[in-house]
Every structure is written in C-alpha cells, then in structure tokens.
C-alpha cells in the first residue's frame, strides 16, 4: 500500500497514457472491456477503463483483480462460472455477467504489485501463452509509465521542497531583520530615556531671579561631562551648581549623573555649599566603578535679601572662578572673579579641602558660571579665549545685567570662534532684575555638536508674571 501511495496515482484524473494501454489491450484481445486498476486497501480503482463507462472503482471482492494482484504471474480465468472463487464476484454474478477474465500484475522495479492490467469478456474464452505474455508486457508498460511519472514527481517535489526551504529561509531572514529593527528601536528608546537622566534639567522659576543657561556637548549622544542644576532647598532658599567631570562622552556622563544626584541629595541634608562638596568628594572616592574619575564644581546657595537681590554663598571645588558682573555708575560693568580660596578637585583626593565665600547679588547684577569649554575655546589666531579674554568680553556687557542676554551674548561669542574640536560647554547665568525691568524668567539653549545648527530654545516661554 505504501508503494501505491508512493506513486501517488490513486484518485488522480484520468491519464491519457493508461487509457491508451486499456484501449490497446481491448483491441489486441478483441474484448469489450479492458482496464488498468490500482488495488487499494479496500477498493479497486480503475486508473483506466475501456468499455466500462461511468465506473471508477469497485469493492475489493475476491476472485478477479483482488486475487490477480496477489500473484506475480498472469491470471487467466477462461470461464468465471467454473472458477470457485470468481463465480461469486459481483462483476460475474452481477449485471455485467463477466465470463472471461485475464490480468497481469503491475510490478514495480522493487517488487511491489500495485494493481493489474485486465481484459474481460462476457463470453468464456481461451488465450494463448503469447497472449499472456502480451498482457504482462502491457502491465510492464503501465509500470514504466508510473516509474516515469514517479521520477517526474520526485523532481517536482524536490523543487517544491527547495522552494519551501528558500521561502522559509527568506521568512527567517525577514523575521531576524524585523527583530533587529525592533531591538534597535528599543535600545534607542532606552538610550533616550537614560539620556534624559544625564542631561541637565529644565531650569525652575525662582522668584526674583532671572536664570539662563546653555549646554552643548561634543558627543553626538548629547551627553557629556558638564553639568548644572538649580533646585529649591527648603524655605525660600535655592541651590545651584555647575561643574565638569574629567573626560567626555558616555563614560563621563555616568559620573556626571552620580555627581548631580549626590549634590542634590547632600544639599537637602545640609544646604551648606562646603558640606555639599565634601559629601560629593567622599561619594566619588568611595565609588569603585568611578575609579579615578573626579570633577570640578561650583556650588552655591541663594538666600533672598529683604530689599531685593540675594546673598550668594559659593564654594569652589577646583573649578575656575564664577564672574560677578556689577554695573558701575559710569555705565560700564565691573567684573570680579568670585574665588573661594583653597577649593580642590572633587573626588580626586581624600584630603581635599573646600572653602566658601559670600557675595551680594544686587538688582541689576549678574553671575556667570561656566566650564572650561568656554575659556579653552580658541580664537581665530589660535589662542585660547582664556580668563583674560572672557573677563574683557564680560566687561563690555550692557548694564543692567540680564541673565538671558548674557547667555545669548556668550553663545554668540562662542559661535564666532572657529574651533572645530570644541569641548563640552555649560553656562549658567543668574541675574536680579531691577525694579523697573521686565519680569524675571528663564532662558535655556541646548546645543549639540552633532547638530550644530539646531539651536533649540527650550522653555523660552516659561516666564513668570
């Protein structure tokens, strides 16, 4: 039966080749009916039938085909009524009244008998040995036809299999590509979320103060070693800091993050600037992952003064001085470096010491904090802007000092410098508006070296009434 299935010929449409064999057999033997049958488990299927219109299969009753397929030799029953088994076959006993039956088995090359080539007559008759041989030859023709079909079928199946494998391969590739796309999108989303924890936050609105900042990174990921923050520390006091972690890019950004959160947490416990830098120094030295990373920072606390302005307490940890801009009576601006003597690098030495000093930020005055990306920027002649260049620039700012215009002017100055390998730059400006000036507000500009033209203005509208 497996062999029948292998040749895949059951229930297939009539095939011209088998029909011709049946017709040839009928003509050669001068019989009314000739068939090519395939014997299935429970039925005999007429692959081709000459003289048996409308019959495609019969039951597997013993006597004729069902018996003939059980032997390798040609079966000849000259008179079915005289045969003890065939006489009760429906074809014999039924309306067809078959009296003569001869069949040759269709035997495959590997010995399986698939069915038979049959000739039937309604009259008894004898056939010669030569006729038997002819019938066997016809069965062999059918066998050859099937073998041909089988090999063609194998080619087709192999091709189908190859196509299926190819299609599966393509599908697998497509799925892998889509998975990669999804992974990439997930990683990008993750990186973007992480990045938001690394870049400085939007500045808050501080009553009586104008704040402005600028942040530009040298890394295309827009994370860097510069940081700043302004946040409330209880009551009507505010704290701010700005600093620079040694190094650039993602590695520096991880230290930046630790630094920012440590300073914020420390200030909530003790809003003394020196204590905050001491806490950061300890945290950076204890952090094994941070290793030899350290930073420079300025940390300040703002106490509002009753008659306007703020008392600013500044502590410096190895950071270049903040500049205090005071308009003079002559209409100019006096620039003072707000140094706190003895402030050392933060996170580099266990024995680091930090000191603080206070200054009064009066209405009309401003304070500029910056990272060395500003002072180390090179001018057209190849020299660094340096402290002297910056102080000279600041002395020419208009009075009264406005944090927004101070940042705008400083960014404009940076933009005129031809340096292509600029470091990260962070700027933070504070100013106290004069009584007659426009209300205080916040200006933020964010710049990335990856998109130098994208001078995005953030929270520009975040102005207080």
């Amino acid at each position: 039966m497996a062999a029948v299935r292998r040749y895949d010929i059951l229930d297939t449409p009539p095939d011209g080749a088998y029909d011709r064999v049946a017709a040839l057999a009928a003509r050669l033997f001068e019989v009314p009916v000739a068939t090519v049958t395939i014997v299935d488990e429970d039925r005999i299927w007429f692959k081709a039938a000459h003289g048996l219109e409308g019959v495609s299969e019969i039951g597997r009753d013993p006597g004729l085909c069902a018996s003939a397929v059980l032997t390798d030799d040609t079966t000849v029953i000259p008179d079915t009524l005289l045969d003890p088994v065939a006489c009760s076959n429906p074809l014999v006993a039924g309306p067809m009244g078959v009296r003569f039956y001869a069949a040759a088995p269709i035997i495959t090359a590997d010995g399986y008998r698939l069915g038979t080539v049959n000739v039937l007559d309604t009259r008894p008759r004898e056939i010669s040995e030569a006729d038997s041989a002819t019938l066997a030859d016809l069965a062999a023709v059918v066998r050859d036809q099937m073998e041909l079909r089988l090999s063609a079928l194998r080619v087709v199946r192999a091709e189908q299999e190859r196509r299926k494998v190819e299609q599966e391969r393509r599908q697998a590739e497509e799925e892998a590509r889509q998975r990669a796309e999804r992974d990439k999108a997930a990683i990008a989303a993750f990186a973007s979320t992480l990045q938001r924890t690394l870049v400085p936050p939007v500045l808050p609105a501080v009553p009586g103060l104008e704040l402005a900042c600028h942040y530009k990174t040298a890394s295309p990921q827009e994370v860097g070693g510069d940081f700043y923050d302004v946040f409330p520390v209880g009551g009507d006091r505010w704290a701010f800091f700005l600093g620079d972690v040694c190094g650039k890019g993602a590695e520096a950004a991880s230290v930046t993050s630790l630094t920012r959160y440590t300073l914020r947490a420390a200030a909530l416990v003790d809003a003394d600037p020196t204590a905050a830098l001491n806490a950061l120094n300890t945290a950076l030295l204890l952090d094994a992952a941070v290793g030899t990373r350290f930073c420079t920072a300025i940390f300040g606390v703002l106490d509002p003064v009753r008659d306007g302005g703020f008392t600013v307490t500044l502590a410096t940890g190895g950071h270049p001085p903040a500049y205090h801009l005071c308009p003079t009576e002559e209409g100019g601006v006096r620039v003072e470096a707000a140094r706190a003597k003895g402030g050392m690098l933060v996170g580099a030495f266990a024995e680091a010491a930090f000191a603080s000093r206070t200054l009064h930020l009066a209405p009309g005055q401003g304070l500029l904090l910056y990272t060395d990306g500003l002072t180390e920027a090179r001018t057209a002649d190849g020299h660094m802007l340096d402290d002297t260049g910056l102080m000279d620039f600041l002395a020419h700012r208009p009075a009264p000092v406005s944090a927004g215009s101070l940042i705008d002017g400083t960014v404009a100055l940076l933009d005129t410098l031809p340096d292509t390998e600029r470091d990260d730059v962070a700027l933070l400006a504070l100013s106290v508006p004069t009584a007659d000036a426009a209300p205080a507000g916040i200006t933020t500009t964010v710049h990335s070296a990856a998109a130098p033209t994208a001078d995005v203005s953030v929270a520009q509208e975040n102005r207080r009434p």
Partner: protein
Amino acid sequence: MTDAFHIDVPHTDGTLAVIALSGDFDIAAAPAVRGRALELISGGHPDLVADLAGVTFCDSSGLGALVGIWRCAKDADGSLTLAAIPDRLGRLLSVTGMDTLLPAYPSAQAALAARPSNRTTA
C-alpha cells in the same frame, strides 16, 4: 596644529624616575602618559618626577592623568613631583588646588637635587 606628543624617561636612579612630557597633554595623550608612569611605578620606580617643560597645553584629561599617577605612586609608597610647570598649567594646578598636594620645582635638575640622597641607593 596639535604638536606630536612625546614621553621620555631620560633618567632613572633606584626608586626614582624622571618622566619628561612634551606636546599637548590632552585626552589623546593622557592614557599613554598614565600607562608609561604606571609601568615605571610597578617596575620599581614609584618616585616620579614629571618634567613638564615641553608641555604646550594641558586640559582636564592631562590633569586627570596626573591625579591618577599621584594616587598610584602613593599606593606604592612613592611620590609624584612636578618640575618646570608651564604658566597656564600652573594656574590650572592652582585653581584645582593640586599645587597644595604636589611638590613643584623650577626644573627636573632642581627636583632631583632636592631629593634625599639616601633613597637613590635603597
């Protein structure tokens, strides 16, 4: 526009080694300086004199390398002494407070002369 950076070790004597730097001591040069210095320290020369006469520029990465070298030297019971500090680097050391921790001399010769002589034969 950036000077080629050079690291030389012109002199070693017992636990002492002079490491002479020239060129821009920046993020590109810092790892090599740190690596060479740590080799000297682990190679039995934990007392380093950094001759900075040829340093044309030093940024925070250069400073970071000096901090790292100073720590490793200290861990090995050694020291880091600076010699011939250029003006700008001097200001940077002052701003960062490092001038209070690292002894400095006008030249490598002066730094060597100031060392206790008994260490060189130890």
